């Protein structure tokens, strides 16, 4: 890992980049409340991919409005987890439309909360009227995502793409 | 035991008649709660049959 000053090297993870986000009660509900997700950033990732799948990333009010709604998480939380890093890089790429975004930490920090905020709305739509424990509703929804496509064919396609990249140190 | 029977025989027919008449008398009064005078009727029957 190269040591560089903050701001001069956008390509490497620095411990100082924070991700501001709109922190609603849902975060608490799904972690301390119903103990479905372990950390807030787990919730955020779920909301973000939920938004990518079914909604639109928000361009306003995604950092939180009033008191207690302005949350902040260090970017290393996402980069430290390999799935999340892949998701975050993909979201950045999809959002900005250019490959550089994949490696741009600041873009990541901007894009994550946009999708997370969009995900809040999707969540409300899908699970808003579930009274009490949403575990089953969420589990069933996630399961239905698999059934929506053709998992076998998709997996084959991914394998093909993976093999295409072999020889590149993958 | 002859002593018991002397003067005490009753013919079969006598007894049968008494029986028939007694039962008829009872039958007539069967459906009354208290068959008044039935004892007198029976007494009379026996007196009539045995004399």
């Amino acid at each position, binding site marked *: 890992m190269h040591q560089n000053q903050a701001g001069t090297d956008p390509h490497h993870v620095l411990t100082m980049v924070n991700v501001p986000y709109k922190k609603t009660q849902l975060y608490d509900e799904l972690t301390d409340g119903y103990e479905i*997700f372990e950390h807030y950033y787990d919730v955020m990732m779920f909301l973000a991919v939920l938004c990518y799948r079914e909604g639109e990333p928000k361009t306003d009010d995604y950092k939180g409005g009033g008191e207690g709604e302005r949350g902040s998480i260090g970017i290393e939380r996402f980069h430290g987890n390999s799935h999340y890093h892949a998701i975050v890089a993909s979201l950045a790429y999809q959002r900005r439309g250019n490959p550089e975004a994949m490696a741009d930490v600041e873009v990541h920090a901007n894009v994550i909360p946009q999708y997370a905020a969009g995900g809040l709305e999707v969540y409300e739509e899908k699970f808003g009227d579930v009274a009490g424990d949403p575990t089953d509703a969420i589990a069933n929804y996630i399961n239905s995502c698999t059934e929506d496509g053709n998992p076998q064919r998709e997996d084959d396609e991914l394998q093909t793409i993976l093999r295409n990249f072999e020889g590149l140190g993958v | 035991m002859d002593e018991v029977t002397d003067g005490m025989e009753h013919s079969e027919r006598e007894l049968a008649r008494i029986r028939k008449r007694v039962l008829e008398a009872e039958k007539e009064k069967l459906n009354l709660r208290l068959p008044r005078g039935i004892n007198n009727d029976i007494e009379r029957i026996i007196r009539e049959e045995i004399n």
Partner: protein
Amino acid sequence: MRLQRLSLTNFRQFTDDSIEFAHGEGANVTVVHGSNGSGKTTLLNAFTWALYDAVDFDTRPERLATEGAMAAANPGEKIEVSVTLEFEHEGRDYTVTRTAMFRKRSNDDFNGEIEDSDVVVEYREDGRATKVENERTALNNIIPQRLSELFFFDGEDIDELAGVDNQDRIQEAIQNIMGLTILERATRHLDHVAGEFEDEYAKYGSDELRELVQQKRDLEGEIDNLERKRKDKQREEERFAEEVRDIEQKLSGFDDSSRLQNQRKEYREREKQLKADIDNITERIRDEINDKGYAPVSMPLIRETAEELDQLRQNGVIPSDLTDDFLDSLLENKQCICGRPLESASDEYQTIESSKGDAPAEGVEQAALMIIGQLSQFSDDRSAFTERLEQHIQERNEKQQEIDKLLEYIDDISTELGEINDAIEGSKSIAEWEAERDRKSQAKDDAIREGSRLKEKIENKEEEIGNLEEEINDLREDRQEAQLARRRQRAAELVSGEIEEKFEDLKQRVRQLSNQTVSGTFGSVASKDLHAEITKEFRLKIYQDLPDRRVEVEKSTGERQIASLAFIGSLVKIARQRYESDGNSEYFTGGIYPLVMDSPFGALDKSHRREISRILPTLASQVVVFATDSQWEGPVEEEMSDVVGKHYRFDFDPGTGSGEYPCTRIKQEQTPTTY
């Protein structure tokens, strides 16, 4: 006797109502049902009032007139209460109308004072109308009052008939139905008359004879007293025996209760365990969501991105071979990418040097390769999530099903416990109940001992009488009057003995006849291998057939009722058979009687109600049943729908408002057989 119609005017809660009775083959049942207190018992009493001027009301027996009518009347006015019963008997159509006038004495007098009570009996035969003069006798000849308890039957007494020590009632019923009462009475009366003749004998005889006869009379008197005492002791014994049985039932209830409670506790613990298991599973589901839930949801994102990255690779935007190693080799070989020679410290050299590890292309490439590198993981996690989730859900469902079953069992047990605990009323502990049972058992034994002692005394005295009679026999009395009286006495005694023998013999014969029907009826409905029988001692017993022997069983309430009904049915049948075959025998009178039953279903469970419903229509040619709504609805209604010819409902208005009085209207319902 075939019932046709019953009409009531101002009779208790019936202001002006009537019922027609079903008759004929197939649909011979008339059913009347209503809520409790709506008037079923009143209807039963209407029959006996019309026929015999006899009523048996639990509440306010003196209040015959309808309260509403009395309320509306002024003091001094009279209310007419009447009941008309129309029936057919031996070719004649009878109309019996009993009327009673009640005068209201004061403003708050609801009973009224009875004036002018009258009964009118008429019949039509071949179109001609005739009035019957000796009403009481005529009615008693048609359906004797002594039989009315059998045919106008309060079902709540039905238990008594087949109750544990009710052989007297059974004997009485048998006697009554066959007119065997004649024989029983004849015996009694002849004995009495024999006594009179013996007194006469003594009157005309010697002093010695008088003395002996007097002694005999005295002994007879003593025996009567002892007999009375012995009967009292016997009743005492029976009463204590029943009390002991009740307590033992309570005690077994305690046993059952604790057994059931333990069972229920077990079930509850298992339920708790299962609930914990379910919570566990749900936790695991949550773990799956947290660990792998991202995968299925993010598939489109990853796929689309991967495809685009693949495209970039194809287009060369992501260099496929520009790595640190290559750059190093370029530097070593002092060659630029473009192929020109590199000079250390030249700008180009610097550029390439600085590209190493931080070429923009490499950061992007790194990110791209990182994403691609995750593809397998995403696929694997996605399938793993689905697989595991399904497993968890199935497991959870199985456990939930088990919980549902347990809840059912627990519920059943709780209900059963509730019933048992109701039966174990009172605040005594088990030890206290046992102590009381022992006391009563002791008291019963005492009564038995007393009874035996008395019996012995009686036997001794009878022996003494026997000796006296021998002495009396030995006396030769000379006077003709004495001899005549003696002969008459003997005649009476002999005839009495004959008749008594015949009586016992006939009772047994009727018992056997009755048994045929009883076992047939009982066998056709009762479950398990049970059969019912009236023993030689006229006890109604129920047996279970085992491979090698027969065992008497404790009758359940349901079985007792079925057996009692079967017994009554058998009597009705025998009476009818006798009537149709014997004509004018000395003592068999017989007759065709209807069966009017008030609440024969009592507190029975559904399956017993169903069974009783099946046999009721077969018991007599005409059957009238009163029941509560809840007894009627359900299995009873189902079983009887084919045989109900007339169906009525009591529409009871309790009259709770001021100025209102209880009133019942009788409403006719449709029956499938109405035509």
